[in-house]
């Protein structure tokens, strides 16, 4: 078993109104150092795979098919064997 931690964010070229609103709120709270905020989604998924390469291929396919919309979003993920297996 593997665990994938997947982060989905809007592409840099896409305006993120939620991020802008959070940034404005931070500034009004006095956190003037905050320069940019992008709001995204986080998925934690466990999956069966025979090895890490197979798991990686599967996670990519899952992201491309359903989890993200490539018109506006991009993703990164980390993959690790689940500890209960070791």
């Amino acid at each position, binding site marked *: 078993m593997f665990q994938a931690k997947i982060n989905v964010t809007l592409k840099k070229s896409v*305006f993120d109104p*939620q991020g802008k*609103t959070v940034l404005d709120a931070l500034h009004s709270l006095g956190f003037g150092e905050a320069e940019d905020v992008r709001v995204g989604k986080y998925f934690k998924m466990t999956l069966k795979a025979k090895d890490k390469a197979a798991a990686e291929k599967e996670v990519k396919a899952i992201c491309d098919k359903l989890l993200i919309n490539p*018109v*506006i979003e991009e993703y990164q993920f980390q993959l690790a064997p689940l500890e209960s297996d070791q």
Partner: protein
Amino acid sequence: MKACVVVFPGSNCDHDCWHVMHDVMRLPVEYVWHKQNALPKVDLVILPGGFSYGDYLRTGAIARFSPIMQDVVRHANSGRAVIGICNGFQILLESGLLPGAMLRNDSLRFICKHIYLKAVNRSSIFTKNIAANQVLNIPIAHGEGNYFCDADTLKCLEQEDRIAFQYVSESGQVNMDANPNGSAANIAGILNEKKNVLGMMPHPERASEAILNSKDGRVIWESLAAALN
């Protein structure tokens, strides 16, 4: 013209669409449950508004994989008519039948109000009865109607006359004040390449009778009835 209204779990404008077809336009119409594999023999498929699958993941992202969608894609690819309204438009975007994607409204608010539209393309089966300079008063009701596409796609939509509707002022001017949600180029509706698939955020089915304060949406159904009868 015979139509069907596809019902997804979470659709909530399906009855309005059915009512307009059946009681206002007096045309044959039937519901199709999203789990069905095949569409009945119809000229027009209506993907109604609502919150299919609770808008989970992204608007329309799960509904596009409903069993019926394979036949909706076949129907569209064979050149027959499909109209997606609001959540129906979002499903068409996710399914790839129309280009682009929806972002949250730039105000981050759900907006439910009457707006003004003009038809940019007036030769499609959906818009051919709309007069030049005619301004349509039709309501919107959405949280994610901020149409986005890359610059090349926008150029392509403009060059191929695929912008069906733009948000305008009451006098018909395209400007930022008339743009309720931040959509690129004030886009409220677009057509596919063959112009047999229309996606639009405003709800013509909520503005097709005088009792609802506007019957400006009716011209879209009349255009379709004239083209497909």
